[in-house]
């Protein structure tokens, strides 16, 4: 019997994600997220106007919602509906890519620590504690305020400040798996570390990572909106939901539509992601075999 086969027979069945996506608890948040994603993708076809174009500087400033402009216009006479639709692309993609970055970095770091063990692991985890003790928003604010970030820089900033929690989670989870018999057997039969990781451990991380990812996206959408609202995130003329609300913050009372609609969009996206995270956790928890 080859090493490969022996370790596989001992392996507990890795969670099959596919069967669960169809579960009822996940349907509602996935549908909401899907709808938002669809809006983002289809923005060029849905938007009635170019989101960056000033339509008529004098005549169309701060127009209330009407038939021609369903969500009104802003101070630069731009169509708010188009800006919110295009903003969905920026807000959602920034958050998603940033979370992917932090998932990759965090998983590598956490797995490395768990596999290395001993002094190296202790040092890596200690560094993580220090990084976690810094309030994330503080770092984001300072960096965002001092450099004029492009969207790409913003994604990197959000991604590279978001992985500490993931690393800690992954390290704990990998440690747990490493202590189990099937991996002991795999190790005894001489399976290489990296192969053990990709083939046996990573599939077991899927539940934890998928929950962390959806909650991470929720947080990141919020953070990006906050940064852009303060003027440190996405800059003119590009629109994100946060930056549209920034345009509206000084005219909250007279031009409420600038704050309300992007605010609702942000709320819907964050709720969808948190909801999905909760539902995923419930689904995985209910199917877990007691140890």
């Amino acid at each position, binding site marked *: 019997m080859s090493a490969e086969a022996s370790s596989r027979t001992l392996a507990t069945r890795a969670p099959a994600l596919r069967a669960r996506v169809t579960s009822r608890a996940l349907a509602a948040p996935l549908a909401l997220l899907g709808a938002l994603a669809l809006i983002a993708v289809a923005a060029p076809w849905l938007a009635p106007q170019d989101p960056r174009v000033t339509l008529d500087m004098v005549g169309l400033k701060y127009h209330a919602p009407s038939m021609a402009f369903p969500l009104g216009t802003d101070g630069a006479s731009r169509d708010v509906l188009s800006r919110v639709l295009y903003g969905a692309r920026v807000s959602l993609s920034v958050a998603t890519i940033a979370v992917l970055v932090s998932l990759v970095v965090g998983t590598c770091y956490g797995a490395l620590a768990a596999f290395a063990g001993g002094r190296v692991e202790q040092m890596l985890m200690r560094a993580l504690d220090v990084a976690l003790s810094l309030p994330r928003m503080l770092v984001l604010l300072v960096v965002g305020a*001092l450099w004029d970030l492009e969207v790409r820089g913003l994604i990197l900033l959000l991604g590279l400040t978001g992985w500490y929690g993931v690393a800690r989670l992954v390290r704990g989870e990998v440690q747990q798996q490493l202590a189990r018999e099937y991996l002991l057997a795999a190790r005894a039969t001489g399976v290489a570390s990296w192969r053990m990781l990709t083939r046996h451990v990573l599939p077991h991380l899927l539940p934890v990572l998928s929950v962390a990812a959806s909650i991470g996206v*929720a947080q990141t959408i919020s953070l990006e909106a906050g940064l852009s609202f303060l003027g440190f995130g996405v800059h003119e003329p590009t629109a994100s939901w946060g930056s549209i609300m920034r345009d509206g913050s000084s005219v909250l009372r007279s031009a409420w539509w600038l704050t309300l609609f992007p605010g609702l969009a942000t709320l819907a996206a964050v709720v969808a992601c948190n909801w999905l995270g909760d539902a995923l956790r419930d689904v995985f928890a209910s199917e877990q075999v007691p140890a």
Partner: protein
Amino acid sequence: MFVAATAAFALLHAAPGDPYSDLDRNQRLSAAVRAQQRARRGLDLPLAQQYQRWIGNIARGDLGWSTSQQRAVRDVIRDALPRTFGLMALALIGSLGFGIAIGAWQGTRANSAGDRALSFLSMLMYSVPEFALAALLMFVLTPWLFPVGGIMTEGFELMSWPARVGNIARHLVLPWLSLSLVGAAVVARYQRSATRDVFRQPFIQTARAKGLGERAVRWQALRASLLPVTALTGLLVPSLLTGAVFVEQIFNWPGMGLTLLRGLDERDYDLVTSVVLGIAGLTVLGSLVADLLRDIADPRARDAARTD
């Protein structure tokens, strides 16, 4: 705190521009004058030397000079810190109070209509960005209830003491409410599941079996369920501080957050590093409070600490 301050120092000095960037744009000033201005604050020294001087000064309690406000950083912080601290303390009390009450109520009636409605509401509050909630509250409540921003009204100096307190309290309501609602949502979610867990434990059965009234049982359960929530307090403080930055900006509350934002705009090195220090300090304080609360909620932890 040390790491936080050093990181802030490094980032500030690595970033383009310095407090005197404005001078460079002024054509009438000669290069010599500009250099002289920078030399006065020691900005012409090598970075390592600047860092050494700065750490030395901090250790001696000298926070430096705010270039944007033209006064000692210590005075700026002395004004701002109590305002943020007060807001945070009240918001922490509000979050824990509302959150525990709502969560415990939900936990005892899991899956009832009221529980579902509240779960939905807390999910909304948990998800909404603080600044959006703050803007909403401001829009709905200001015209007939509360002043829009700032910490006190004009003519404050002329008021009597009770009137002064009342004036500040009225200004506090909206920032406090914005922070507390978000915090309470987080706490309520934990408290709800903690309460449900406790009710599944054998000691509740024992209590019921020995004929304890349902009210007394609930009281016991509440005490036991507070444990996981006290651990949450340490995490709540950083998130409330993050929220405070936005809330202070929106309601023009002149605390640490607003000071930080203004200082960053002006590249005010000493001020920003000190505010970062202060906020890191408040975070540490928060975890201390969490430890204290845990000792109150859990006699076992208290006794373990004593026998150590």
